[in-house]
């Protein structure tokens, strides 16, 4: 199936997901166009993280469809490895490989998965580390870096695969307040460069400033969505208003 820029890059339609008997997503739909920055916010347990983990196939869905660049994620015939080359992910717990230096962490996937030449991959990795502001930490191991630094290396690692869309799963939730900013700045720069980003986050300031569209989930459903201006100033649903009042 061919896909062009005018169609949504990620198209989620009526997705249902359960863990055993616990239904976590109860019919979620949303579209992401190329170059957009989407923020998904909501209380814990509303299914936000589960949703984005379905996009790159880490979780399967029971009903509905998820299309990434026209490809159905739920298709059993789909080569998940191909999908993951297009969809990058950054985790809350960074999940860097502890036995490799920062540079090696960034280089590893392009060499092993994309079969790039080692020297080319190394050069690209150095550039990426510079882009996230960590060129002096090339030879450092994850255990020697702060949380914020590790997270930025994680972002560089995803970028090394040249994905079309990056998923961010509450990436600043485990960081000290001081380091949160450096990571958010990195993501902002990425967005300005035109990367399609889908973020699950609690950072309202960031969402207001950078997002093109915000979705509020509660109880496995999307309750309300809109652009930041409309969302923060004219929230319609009482649940949204209650949530916003608690965190703002």
């Amino acid at each position, binding site marked *: 199936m061919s896909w062009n820029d005018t169609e949504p890059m990620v198209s989620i339609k009526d997705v249902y997901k359960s863990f055993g008997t616990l239904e976590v997503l109860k019919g979620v739909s949303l579209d992401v166009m190329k170059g957009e920055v989407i923020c998904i916010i909501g209380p814990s347990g509303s299914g936000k993280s589960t949703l984005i983990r379905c996009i790159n196939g880490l979780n399967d869905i029971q009903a509905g469809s998820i299309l990434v660049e026209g490809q159905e994620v739920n298709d059993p015939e789909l080569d998940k490895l191909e999908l993951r080359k297009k969809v990058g992910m950054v985790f809350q*717990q*960074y999940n860097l490989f*502890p036995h490799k230096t920062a540079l090696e962490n960034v280089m590893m996937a392009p060499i092993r998965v994309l079969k790039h030449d080692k020297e080319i991959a190394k050069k690209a990795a150095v550039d990426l580390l510079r882009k996230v502001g960590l060129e002096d930490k090339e030879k450092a191991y*994850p*255990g020697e870096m702060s*949380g914020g630094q590790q997270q930025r290396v994680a972002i560089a690692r995803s970028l090394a695969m040249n994905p079309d869309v990056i998923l961010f799963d509450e990436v600043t*939730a*485990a*960081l*000290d*307040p001081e380091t*949160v900013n450096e990571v958010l700045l990195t993501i902002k720069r990425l967005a300005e460069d035109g990367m399609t980003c889908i973020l699950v986050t*609690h*950072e*309202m*300031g960031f969402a207001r400033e950078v997002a093109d569209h915000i979705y509020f989930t509660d109880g496995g459903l999307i309750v309300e969505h809109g652009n930041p201006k409309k969302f923060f100033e004219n929230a319609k649903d009482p649940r949204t208003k209650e949530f916003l009042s*608690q*965190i*703002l």
Partner: protein
Amino acid sequence: MKYQTYKTDLPVMMPYKPVEIENFGSSIKFWYLVPILALILGTSAIAQSGSDIRLGTMQTLMRWMPLLLQGFIFNVLISVMAMAIGTGLGAALGIGQLSLNRLVRSSSWLLTQFFRNAPWLVLLFFAMFLLPFEVNIFGIIVPLPDWVKATIGLALPVMANVSEIIRGAVLSLPSGQWEAAESLAYSRRQTLWLIILPQCLKRMLPPWMNLYAILTMATVLASIVGVSEVMTLTGEALAAEGGRPDLLAPFYAFVLLIFFVYCYPIAQLTVRLERKFSVIN
């Protein structure tokens, strides 16, 4: 702007708990016997196809089974005795390793290391050749038959391992225990006997049981030095049957079977105990 952040101490690796015995399944899987029995029956069936008027392989095995089982009981006897002697000596050595007296401590440590690093078979030879064939205690002549010498030979590595188990268990207790006892004016000896060692007993039990299983399996080494136990008897039985090649697999498989039936439940029990005690700790 109120939002929740928390500093997590992200462990890069989950804490590793050294496991000496397997962890999978806390119930004894009886179906394991099926493949072994199939092995015995299968090999004898294959071999059967070649033989003519001679007695069937299975029947021959049946004929010799009582004798082999008796031999095995002897193995168990040796293992129990060696365990008893080894544990007794090892306990003394282990406590010696904890002594405040430097000479006692270093010589205990040296002895432990020396006997730990030596192969069991070499120690067995050591005992067989160097122990006299009889000892004179207070005018009474006590003969030392081969199997007694072998038992002593097997008790030596047990002693070294028990010493290490004790030392490891004592060192694994939090130092707070020692400090608490000290502040209550317990002497070192009282601390050791009344507080530390009782708590250690639980920790020592799984590795000690593991050691017993290893020892039981090591008793077959005695066949190499001429003691008449199950392996020697198997060899003699095979020879008595005229060295028929078709008997080899079933007989040896049978010996494997008896040891498996004896040692596997011990291993499973050890796993369960280890799990149970670690919860309490």
